[in-house]
């Protein structure tokens, strides 16, 4: 069975400091992994995705994530937080067969303090 665990429900950082949002997954298949961001009252926007190519994935707005199979992790990082990064972030896994049954993490709320 597949599952996704976002290890922090809330993360608070100061503007200009690094961001780390943690995600661990469990999958019997070679997974595809995604990070999505959701701003208040908006839909979900893709930040980046991993699909068995390079293990370090670069996304939009300066975010990147590293796929570590040995640790079953796919943590999201950004070197320097902006106020506009304040949002909810979701780690998502989908099986290689892409049946459509995405598995969502519970979400991490990122707060950015001035």
């Amino acid at each position, binding site marked *: 069975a597949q599952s996704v665990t976002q290890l922090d429900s809330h993360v608070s950082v100061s503007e200009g400091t690094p961001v780390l949002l943690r995600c661990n997954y469990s999958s019997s298949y070679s997974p*595809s992994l*995604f990070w*999505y961001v959701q701003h208040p*009252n*908006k*839909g*979900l*926007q*893709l930040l980046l*995705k991993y*699909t*068995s190519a390079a293990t370090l994935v670069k996304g939009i707005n300066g975010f990147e994530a590293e796929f570590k199979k040995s640790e079953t992790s796919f943590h999201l990082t950004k070197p320097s937080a902006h106020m506009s990064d304040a949002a909810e972030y*979701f780690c*998502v896994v*989908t*099986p*290689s*067969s*892409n*049946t*459509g*049954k*995405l598995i*969502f*993490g*519970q*979400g991490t709320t990122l707060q950015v303090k001035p």
Partner: protein
Amino acid sequence: DAGITQSPRHKVTETGTPVTLRCHQTENHRYMYWYRQDPGHGLRLIHYSYGVKDTDKGEVSDGYSVSRSKTEDFLLTLESATSSQTSVYFCATSGQGAGNTIYFGEGSWLTVV
């Protein structure tokens, strides 16, 4: 961004009435999904479709039905709305193939009173 339109965007309805939410896409994507989002539960899959007239249940399908008569439209019906179905509903689409990006609509806020 993928062309996904949800309607209505906001609706208040009474308990026991049927409600239909519509999702329309212009990307010719094969897969379409309906999710609901609730505090503490993240996004949960209600139903999804893998082609015209081909649908399957998700993890929270009770009380919901779907139909897909055209590639571009995926309808979600609450047969008899209950207060527990007050939620934000998101439609999503994706093309065929492993690792295809899932694109989301802007959401439909439904309140059942």
